[in-house]
């Protein structure tokens, strides 16, 4: 036992000492804590404006759906590789040591709780919007976080148990799938009955959320009922459902520990898979397909182009092999459908297409890195091809440019049709979105060029995000100020100004990042623990 306590305590101590040795990391943590403090203070003020708030039952619905997503992931993981509760170093050192497997399992579960806290940390940042929407305070947000952590911990243990029971046994896997559907069947049936009874989807949903069917739905229902009861002051009910989660977790741990002390094999596959993913990324293979076990059929082969253009044709071959829609995979379909749905909600609110544009631009800041061009920078080939840096950069990004342009046309024409926007406004939105993506590529290269890629991936991401905000600011101010002076055509004019600024700034970024391929180190994804 003392060795495990030593491991936990020393890990915490060393993490803290590492923070002191790495000022950039320390600043980042101070920044996050300061933001949390700011959110806490803000939430104290927003609590006063409780008049225009939504019914807390809708918060229960959101929390239920959110937790349900983790239930689905846990079951899926349990049926494939099991969940990752250990690191490879635990496998190499602890599993072969003369420490009781049951104690090691406890150690894994404590570490898992830490990971669950990390996963739910972002909930704390929602306290302001939750306060405004539902009139709840920071204490309620902490309860939401607690409910989430409890649920995730239980789900990780459940995932381990499912793997342990079904590993290599298709009939048991089928049984788990059937049970997973059956336990939610009463809820689905009740919701259906309510819909046919009332004929009103919103009312049916509200009735379902108030029913015991949702409260007793495993894990997601228990957690949402427990949290909302405690927030509403029904302490008894809240403790009952939180207690149910804790009791289930304790029983599952007891079952695993007593029935299967030799659980090492059950956690090994998941641990090795996670380790392999990290290793592949740290060695430069940023393509998600590298770690995928999906069987790929090779039919058409060959690569076109000559010189730097071979990069583009290689990207085409890779994309069309990875999925049938080529450059436009499932994510593109989801984005177009999501944008259409969002447009339906915005239809009556006014300014629909511009709000959609804002949301998509925010998302694009983080999605631009999914293009194959930026991933090429992590592998040596692009540096060694005997062509000019400029040509290589251009050809390696043609794929993402083409993808974004076609996506933008589909998204904004669909949204324009739904919201009734003019063709000119649709074209302006497409221009702003496509040129923003072009600018983001430029900022990515500029960040690499400026830092020499000699920093951690996390810090590079922070620098990139700050650079996006700073570079966009003059264009946004000019667009808003000038646009607001011209009445009806102001929005169109504002979009035009913003698009021009994006084009100008993008050219500037590309010019300043000239020679990025030989003026910065080949970036390495530092994944930390391996």
């Amino acid at each position: 036992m003392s060795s495990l306590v030593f491991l936990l305590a020393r890990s915490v101590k060393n993490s803290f000492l590492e923070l002191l040795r790495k000022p950039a990391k320390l600043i980042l943590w101070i920044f996050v804590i300061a933001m949390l403090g700011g959110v806490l203070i803000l939430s104290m003020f927003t609590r006063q404006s409780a008049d225009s708030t939504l019914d807390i039952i809708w918060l229960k619905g959101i929390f239920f759906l959110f937790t349900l997503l983790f239930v689905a992931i846990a079951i899926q993981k349990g049926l494939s590789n099991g969940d990752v509760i250990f690191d490879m170093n635990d496998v190499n050192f602890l599993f072969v040591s003369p420490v009781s497997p049951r104690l090691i399992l406890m150690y894994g579960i404590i570490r898992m709780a830490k990971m669950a806290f990390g996963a739910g940390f972002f909930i704390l940042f929602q306290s302001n919007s939750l306060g405004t929407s539902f009139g709840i305070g920071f204490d309620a947000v902490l309860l939401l976080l607690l409910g989430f952590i409890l649920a995730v911990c239980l789900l990780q243990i459940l995932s381990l148990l499912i793997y342990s029971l079904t590993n290599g046994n298709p009939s048991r896997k089928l049984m788990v799938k059937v049970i997973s559907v059956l336990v939610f069947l009463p809820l689905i049936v009740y919701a259906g009955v309510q819909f046919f009874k009332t004929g009103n989807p919103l009312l049916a949903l509200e009735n379902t959320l108030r029913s015991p069917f949702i409260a007793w739905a495993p894990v997601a229902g228990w957690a949402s009922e427990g949290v909302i009861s405690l927030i509403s002051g029904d302490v008894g009910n809240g403790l009952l459902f939180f207690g149910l989660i804790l009791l289930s977790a304790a029983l599952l741990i007891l079952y695993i520990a007593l029935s299967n002390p030799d659980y090492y094999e059950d956690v090994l596959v998941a641990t090795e898979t996670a380790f392999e993913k990290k290793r592949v990324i740290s060695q430069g293979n940023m393509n998600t397909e590298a770690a995928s076990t999906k069987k790929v059929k090779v039919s058409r082969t060959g690569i076109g182009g000559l010189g730097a253009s071979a990069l583009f044709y290689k990207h085409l071959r890779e994309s069309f092999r990875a999925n049938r829609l080529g450059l436009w995979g499932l994510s593109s379909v989801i984005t177009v459908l999501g944008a259409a749905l969002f447009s339906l909600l915005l239809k009556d609110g006014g300014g629909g297409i511009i709000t959609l544009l804002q949301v998509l631009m925010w998302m694009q800041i983080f999605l631009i890195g999914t293009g194959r061009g930026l991933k090429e920078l992590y592998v040596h080939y692009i540096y060694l091809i005997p062509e000019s840096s400029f040509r290589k950069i251009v050809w390696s990004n043609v794929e993402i440019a083409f993808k974004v342009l076609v996506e933008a046309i589909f998204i904004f024409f669909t949204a324009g049709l739904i919201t009734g926007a003019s063709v000119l406004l649709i074209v302006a939105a497409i221009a702003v979105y496509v040129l923003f993506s072009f600018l983001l590529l430029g900022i990515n290269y500029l960040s690499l060029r400026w830092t020499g890629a000699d920093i951690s991936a996390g810090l590079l991401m922070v620098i990139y995000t700050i650079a996006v905000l700073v570079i966009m600011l003059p264009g946004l101010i000019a667009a808003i100020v000038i646009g607001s002076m011209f009445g009806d055509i102001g929005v169109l004019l504002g979009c035009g100004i913003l698009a021009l600024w994006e084009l100008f700034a993008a050219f500037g970024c590309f010019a300043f990042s000239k020679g990025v391929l030989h003026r910065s180190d080949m970036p390495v994804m530092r994944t930390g623990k391996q």
Partner: protein
Amino acid sequence: MIDVLGMTKKYGRFKANDNITLSVGSGELAVLLGPNGAGKSTLIKSVCGLLRFDGSVTIGGYENHTTEAKRLLGYVPEFPVLYPMLTVAEHLEFIAKAYRLSTWEENAEKLLQRFELDDKKMKLGKELSKGMQQKVSVCCALLPQPKAIILDEPLIGLDPHGIRELKAVISELRESGCALLVSTHMIESMEENWDVTYIMVKGRIERVCRRADLDANQSLEDVYFAITEGNSQEGKS
């Protein structure tokens, strides 16, 4: 062919390579030896133009970032990184197209046969074992028939056949006038063919050793341990 002059590579205040000077002539096999963390891979990556550095690196008289230098250079990295969605054959085709090679098919076929990859041509990069990936990586580096080749731990992960073939390829390349810079921990693997050895310790070249400098009863391994672990073993058989 490969000339490094006063090359220094820093990470913050830490000097991974400190004022390195080395040269590898045509038809010469230079071996880079050193304990873990000596800075061998950093030096190799800098020579290949993957890292920034202070000093000068030229390949065939051209600064290493120029297209002329890149045309002369082949590189086998320490960890083979293949494109997961390209087949083995497509990796070679990509290199051929990117390097604008006109007649490459026959050479590619020979390389694949030599490394027993001819029956794996339609396999995807992600479906290959690490050893197979290393073989493809070697084939990609050799396809453009470079005049200077840099290999970073090339034998790691290869099966006995792969090791034998790669050693034979290295020997043939040397005979044909190619300049080779090889970093390895497997000293005995280069014992037959080496011309010059650079022994690195803590980012610096501690000793340059030419084959002619050794006594008849002295091996490369003796020299290495003499430098890295003191003089006690120098001179032993």
